[in-house]
């Protein structure tokens, strides 16, 4: 479904060059839910933008359903890390969610249903008429998530979408994502810096090294597919997996420190 091959991205400006990612290769199969963890600044956002066709890689390729990604593919939704800035401040919450649906030429009635459903799902039914700047950071983030799910994408990319919400909301949203992913046939790539979250959510966790970035490890999460905040997180396998990933990341730091 999604194939990333030898992806390298070097940011260039007049004074300097930053090699954000060096050599990334991995595949996602259709309908997979994969999490991407890695230290801050290792190029997670860069990778996501390349996959979303918003940015051209310096070398390497991204292929989606057999086709090379050169621009934003249809049926793909992205929840940006800068959630607050990704909402249109001159549109209400409803307007923000509806805008992509209008472009999809959905009839008004269907748009209304999708807006209501997605807001309900993120627990913001009462805020449809509010403007984004009237909401807290966590609420804005949930609006961005609602907009993405109302779009009914086949591929959903999320860049640290729960960074600004409290622990309880975060747990609810994690369950929401798993639920949506179960209900609709979506391929989800979820970026987080929270190892527990990655293990809880994913079928698979890709661990990125620190810069120069490569895929450090690809961990398959063999937890039962029905997950629950209490039982899953206290499962022995859960603890084992998170310990493994944690030490991988520590390793990554040391190797890159040694390389320097």
């Amino acid at each position, binding site marked *: 479904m999604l194939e990333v091959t030898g992806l390298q991205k070097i940011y260039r400006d007049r004074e300097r060059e930053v090699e954000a990612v060096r050599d990334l290769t991995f595949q996602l199969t259709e309908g997979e839910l994969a999490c991407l963890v890695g230290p801050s600044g290792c190029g997670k956002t860069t990778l996501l*933008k390349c996959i*979303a066709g*918003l940015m051209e890689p310096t070398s390497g390729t991204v292929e989606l359903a057999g086709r090379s990604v050169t621009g*934003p593919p249809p049926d793909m*939704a992205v929840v940006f890390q800068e959630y607050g800035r990704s909402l249109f*401040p001159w549109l209400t919450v409803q307007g923000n969610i509806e805008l992509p649906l209008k*472009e999809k030429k959905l009839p008004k009635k269907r748009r209304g249903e999708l807006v209501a459903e997605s807001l309900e799902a993120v627990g913001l039914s009462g805020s449809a008429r509010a403007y984004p700047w009237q909401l807290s950071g966590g609420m804005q983030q949930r609006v961005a998530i609602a907009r993405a799910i109302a779009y009914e994408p086949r591929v959903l990319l999320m860049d640290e979408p729960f960074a600004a919400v409290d622990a309880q909301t975060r747990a609810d949203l994690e369950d929401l994502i798993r639920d949506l992913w179960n209900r609709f046939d979506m391929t989800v790539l979820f970026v987080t810096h929270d190892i527990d979250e990655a293990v809880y959510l994913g079928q698979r966790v890709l661990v990125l090294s620190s810069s120069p970035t490569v895929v450090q490890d690809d961990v398959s999460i063999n937890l039962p597919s029905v997950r629950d905040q209490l039982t899953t997180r206290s499962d022995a396998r859960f603890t084992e997996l998170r310990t493994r990933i944690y030490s991988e990341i520590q390793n990554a730091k040391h190797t890159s420190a040694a390389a320097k």
Partner: protein
Amino acid sequence: MTAYTTRSAGFARKAVGRIAAWFLLPLLLVLLWWASSLSSGNYYMTPPNEIATTFGEVWTAEAVSTDVLPSVARLLSGFAIAAVLGTVLGMALGLSPRLRALTEPVLEFFRAIPPPVLVPLLMLLIGVNTSMKLAVIISGCVWPILLNTIEGVRAVDPVLTDTCRCYGIRGRRWLTTLVLRSASPQIMAGLRQGLSIAIILMVISEMFASNSGLGYAIQEFQRSFAIPEMWTGIVLLGLLGVVLSVLFGLVERRVLAWYHGMRAAHRAG
């Protein structure tokens, strides 16, 4: 309940206070003017009471319809044309770096020319008529609109641009929902500057060559030493400016409600 009434009473007091503050300075200035015109006895400094009485005599319904309304109509149409021209060109230039690089030197050149010096030239080229007056108004007030629009369009948040790209928002919807709206604070600032330039140029265009209009009337009064009448013209011009500015403010409050709300929210947070 009591809390509510005291709050609304406080609100009313604030409103009254604001209105009083609004009128305080004008009132003081009028008094100052009065005192100095009485004490100096200068022929050219008509006391305010005389200006007030003359005002009614000069600006009769007929004078208003022959001199004021055509002026205002020219002002507004010139401004409207400049607004459309400036916004449309500004969006095109703001969106295209190549177009910008190509036109930048020319824009700087024309912008540096004070519009009044164009009046004689435009008179020769177009003749002494309404088109020429419109051309004067447009040639002056299009620049702040154009330049502000360019800046506004260039400052569109890249995250919003990416959001639009990823959700496939393009074409007209992209232009109106993303580009125009996000540049609207700068566009409005440009329009406001343009409006005050338009008033100045309306008067100047009528002073050079005209046989009607507010600017013409003021100049005629001055030439025939009808000093109180001249003053009424100046007062009328000032009032026109105030009214237009208030109207503009009302439109702006509506158009930029989101912007002011957002700024207030950021200040509070």
